[in-house]
């Protein structure tokens, strides 16, 4: 049927123009590769002033730790382990914060709104963040180890000492694993709370308050004193700084499942399903 209706007012000519309404021919774009998402997530760790300095602090801290070791430890007692323990402590504080913020800054700054509309597969974004976090942890330890080694070599050359390399590759790998566990505790708390202050406070409760509670309990309760390493991830992780027995690995596994794997599953579900506002 063809009729011409006399409208009281003509409609906007451009909007009615059938030529204009014709959809532009375009190819369906290719899916976003995972590597690209990981690259973006890595870039996001550096591209704010706070993020940049948090990363830079890893290098600064390993330089400072090396310098402090050279200045304050007697030449007779100087060995590589001394350097390693000097940068171990600051690393164990800063690395988990990087992991927490990798997750929570999306929610605290609400940039998740943009991130998840550009990549609707939230699991891919979180997987990319996890990968990048793990890599940053390994690189940070490698940098600290290298800075410590160079400092030690320098001071040994100047003072004509024989360097004592009393840390094996296995020990270094265990220390790296310990710091990765700390980072992923932070990452897990980030997914659970999706708020920077809440997750950071929760991390310090875990890392600073719980060990005290656990050892207080152990001093009054003999069962806990004997079995705590099965249930206390801080305790089980501390063993990584010494030689690990099979039992210790088993304890680390059990404690990790309780403290890390199970809550992480809850956190991931929250991240994947919860409303992003």
């Amino acid at each position, binding site marked *: 049927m063809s009729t011409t209706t006399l*409208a*009281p*007012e003509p*409609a*906007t000519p*451009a*909007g009615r*123009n059938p030529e*204009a*309404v*014709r*959809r*532009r021919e*375009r190819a*369906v*774009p*290719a*899916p*976003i590769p995972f590597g*690209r*998402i990981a*690259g*973006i997530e890595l*870039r*996001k760790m550096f*591209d*704010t*002033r*706070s*993020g940049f300095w948090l990363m830079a602090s890893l290098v600064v801290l390993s330089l400072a730790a090396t310098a402090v070791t050279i200045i304050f430890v007697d030449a007779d007692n100087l060995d590589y382990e001394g350097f390693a323990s000097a940068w171990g402590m600051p690393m164990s504080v800063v690395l988990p914060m990087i992991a927490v913020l990798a997750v929570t*800054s999306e929610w605290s*700054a*609400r*940039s*998740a*709104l*943009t991130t*998840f*509309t*550009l*990549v*609707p*597969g939230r699991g891919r974004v979180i997987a990319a963040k996890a990968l990048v976090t793990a890599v940053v942890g390994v690189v940070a330890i490698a940098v600290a180890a290298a800075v410590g080694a160079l400092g030690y070599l320098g001071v040994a050359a100047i003072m004509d000492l024989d360097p004592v390399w009393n840390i094996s590759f296995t020990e270094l790998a265990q220390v790296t694993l310990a710091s990765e566990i700390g980072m992923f505790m932070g990452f897990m708390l980030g997914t659970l709370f999706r708020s920077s202050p809440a997750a950071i406070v929760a991390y310090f409760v875990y890392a600073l308050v719980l060990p005290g509670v656990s050892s207080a309990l152990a001093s009054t309760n003999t069962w806990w004193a004997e079995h705590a390493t099965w249930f206390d991830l801080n305790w089980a992780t501390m063993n990584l700084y010494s030689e690990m027995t099979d039992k210790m690995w088993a304890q680390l596994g059990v404690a990790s499942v309780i403290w890390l794997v199970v809550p992480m599953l809850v956190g991931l579900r929250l991240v994947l*399903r919860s*409303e*992003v*506002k």
Partner: protein
Amino acid sequence: MIQIDALSKRYGRFTAVDNVTFTAEPGRVTGFLGPNGAGKSTTMRILVGLTDPSSGSAHLLGRHFSQLPNPGREVGVLLDASAQHGGRTGREILTLAARTMGLAKSSVAETLDRVSLTEEEAGRRVRNYSLGMRQRLGIATALIGDPEVLILDEPANGLDPAGIRWMRDLLRGFADDGGTVLLSSHLLHEIEVIADDIVVIGNGRIVAQGTKQELLSSGETYARSSDPTSLGRALQRAGHTAELTTEGAVLSDADLTTVGQVAFDTGLVLSELRAADGAGLEEMFLQLTAETQRDHLETPERNAA
């Protein structure tokens, strides 16, 4: 093309979006109008997969948003211009979007230029941006992937009148190229200026939808003449209604041509002849907002509008 079908979202006993159905057509700018808290943003978040609906469905270009392989290349989204990390520069935020979509580096500078952000402004951190600049950056993020569909939540917020005009021209051009635009606003005036089609939402429900002309026109004719009384009488003699307004114009239910013809036959000079402003949409909109607004109008003087 955006299709929203029987969409509902409930939070416990509160229904934020209640059985909403509408379509935004390609080549048209569709305005999503409603007071604050009416369910506009929730509907838009469901549209882009940030919120799961309780029931119903939302499709873009015939697919669910999560099925788009590279959404930024097909659907440009701006939900909240302030939802960015304040420590990043404008250029960095746009670069992140461009890289995620796999676009050429040059697209960043081109798009900054398109939204009139200068080099110097793009290098500033977003926490130092005015709301208007954030909106421009947000629109740039939505546009950079050369999408077919634009979804913009309150994009005119914080823009000055020149900015609103710029955005109208930009969206007009986008729609004329065959794109689909859905934009929301809580201000009737903004929607009037920008949109072709209007969907009005209140308390989660759609209360009106249609073209701007349908919704805005009252069907009456507004005429000014040197002798309004004679014009009014002549119209009444021809079987039409005629009222004199306070400003000395005539309002009639006759259409434009009839009023012109009557004036001509009576030998009156018309100094103005047009479709009367519809008070209907504004009246409805005020009723929607009445429950939540602070300034209760005891005796609404609609004639003044």
